[in-house]
């Protein structure tokens, strides 16, 4: 990548004998919105804290705008950060929160004023400037927290699960606002979350992390369509992907007496022959339609969700779920014909769990 905004090279982090990050490399482009996604304990927040300089790395380097900041103080790295708990200074007004860091850096008064005005205008918090955080709603607080990063006028924004403390509706609203904000500011943003919807909707690229390693770094589409390993495939998508265990041989996937023709599947390596996992997303199932592969299914449970309906069945004795239109009339006990296009499926090696 030419001129990355943030570049992380061979990063190691140990707490005592526990390795939290392992030889991690990551380049983030100018103006990119990168989401670090993973289950709790995967090291995503740790990585963010390392970038911010809030944690000392054990080995490796961090560059921000081509400047080696590995040993720099957080405030000297040209970053702004937004925290899950907002971390607003409770005894100061909103204005105080926004200006405290700037005043401390001995910035001229009118410059501070300009910046606060701009941030307040962007985030629409002008009426709140004289209030204290305790008198704000969760969403307002989060805006102020963003504002505090904004007034720093930096190139890189770091978000540490900023929406986790909000209720579902507010979270959706703010998500959009964040997206708008990014469109407007065109800053580099690194965003940590465990919520895949946030990741999918916001990210230019998502880095899925597990055990201190980046599993896959790609655009949301790519990650959704072509997960590099079974973990990613399982993690992304809700409801989760269906999996069958079986053998891949002669262009076919065989599970017991079921055989799926894989001629339409994009193999990385055509000649492969091994035990494998076969995965297909519930939303890629076709019902009562012609499909390259189809079978009969007996409906066990129906979960109507309004926009769509989740149906549980068994294929070859293995629990299997698929998604139908919200208006579909289906009931427990029905027998359906279901099928899918193997082109949309994913195959993973049984032992390495890597994509085939």
């Amino acid at each position, binding site marked *: 990548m030419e001129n990355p905004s943030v570049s992380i090279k061979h990063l190691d982090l140990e707490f005592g004998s526990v390795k939290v990050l392992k030889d991690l490399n990551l380049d983030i482009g100018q103006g990119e919105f990168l989401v670090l996604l993973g289950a709790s304990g995967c090291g995503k927040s740790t990585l963010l*804290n390392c970038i*911010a300089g*809030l944690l000392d790395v054990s080995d490796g380097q961090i560059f921000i705008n081509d400047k080696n900041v590995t040993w720099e103080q*957080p405030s000297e790295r040209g970053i702004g950060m937004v925290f899950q708990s*907002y*971390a607003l200074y*409770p005894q100061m007004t909103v204005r105080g929160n926004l200006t405290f*860091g700037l005043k*401390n850096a001995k910035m001229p008064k009118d410059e501070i004023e300009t910046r606060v005005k701009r941030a307040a205008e962007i985030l629409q918090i002008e009426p709140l400037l004289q209030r204290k955080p305790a008198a704000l709603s969760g969403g307002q607080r989060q805006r102020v927290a963003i504002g505090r990063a904004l007034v720093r006028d930096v190139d890189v924004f770091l978000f540490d699960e900023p929406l986790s403390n909000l209720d579902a509706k507010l979270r959706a609203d703010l998500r959009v606002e964040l997206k708008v904000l990014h469109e407007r500011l065109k800053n580099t943003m690194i965003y940590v979350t465990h919520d895949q919807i946030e990741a999918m909707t916001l990210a230019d690229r998502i880095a899925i992390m597990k055990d201190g390693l980046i599993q896959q770094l790609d655009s949301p589409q790519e990650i959704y369509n072509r997960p590099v390993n079974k973990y990613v495939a399982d993690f992304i998508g809700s409801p989760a992907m269906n999996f069958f265990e079986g053998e891949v041989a002669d262009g076919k996937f065989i599970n017991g007496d079921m055989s799926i023709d894989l001629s339409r599947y994009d193999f990385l390596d055509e000649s492969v022959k091994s035990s494998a996992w076969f995965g297909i997303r519930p939303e890629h199932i076709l019902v009562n339609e012609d499909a390259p592969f189809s079978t009969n299914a007996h409906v066990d449970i129906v979960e109507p969700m309004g926009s769509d309906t989740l149906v549980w069945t068994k294929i070859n004795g293995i629990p299997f779920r698929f998604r139908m239109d919200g208006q579909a009339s289906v009931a427990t006990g029905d027998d359906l014909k279901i099928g899918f296009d193997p082109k949309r499926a994913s195959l993973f090696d049984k032992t390495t769990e890597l994509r085939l």
Partner: protein
Amino acid sequence: MAQTGRPTQLFRNMSAKIAAIPMVLTALVVFVGATLWTVYHSFTKSKLLPNSKLVGLDQYERLWSQNRWLISIENLAIYGICSMIFSLVIGFLLAAMLDQKIRFENTFRSIFLYPFALSFIVTGLVWQWILNPEFGIQKIIRSLGFEEFVFDPLYNPDIVIYGVLIAGLWQGTGLIMCLMLAGLRGIDEDIWKAARVDGIPMWKTYVFIIIPMMRAVFITTLVIIASGIVKVYDLVVAQTSGGPGIASEVPAKYVYDYMFKNQNLGQGFAASTMMLLSVLVIVIPWAYLEFKGERSRG
């Protein structure tokens, strides 16, 4: 359902009310009743036994003309203000130092806190011994060659109250440190991170962000220190007996001496009423603020 007989107001929460009886009795009989009794009798000419011969403000007039009382008040003020300031400052500094992710934190904390487990009698006796000019610090410094060195706070009327203060701080700051440390630990990690990202130096973070956030802790702590200052009787009795002369007298001792030793209950009651009054002057504004705050919060 509506007809099942709603319990009357009195019997609602009956168990809770029964459980609160000791509190109600203590509050009414001891704290209110006993206090009023004492206040009333401070206007009487009670000597060895309480009586009801009212004499108006005579006892108070006499009280404020007593040199010993004035010295006691002055001592309490010095001791009170100094111990509030020093134990808050020292306690907070110690807590802040222990909060720097240091090694042996537990050891240090145990060392700072153990004197709190000891009584004022023990504290007073030990410090009396250490400050003894013939055996203690003064002698050691002198034996190092500084023959003229003088450090005898317990024998110098001008500074004796500071000698008591040294012992009092030794005993009490550990607890303050613990309270402060707990308060510091209760602060959201993210606040620290935010301050670091904002580039705010550590001391400024403490002064402008952390300390204001610990307002509740500071108030609790002040309450604890204040009630400790009220108790400053045992310590003086054990360490100096009010001496040299009457230089380290405190109001509590004045009260006790007049009530029992000098057999002038009225005078003792008057002095204790004055103590009560000065406590109220401090407590009422604080309580007013506290409760007002609570109402707007709730």
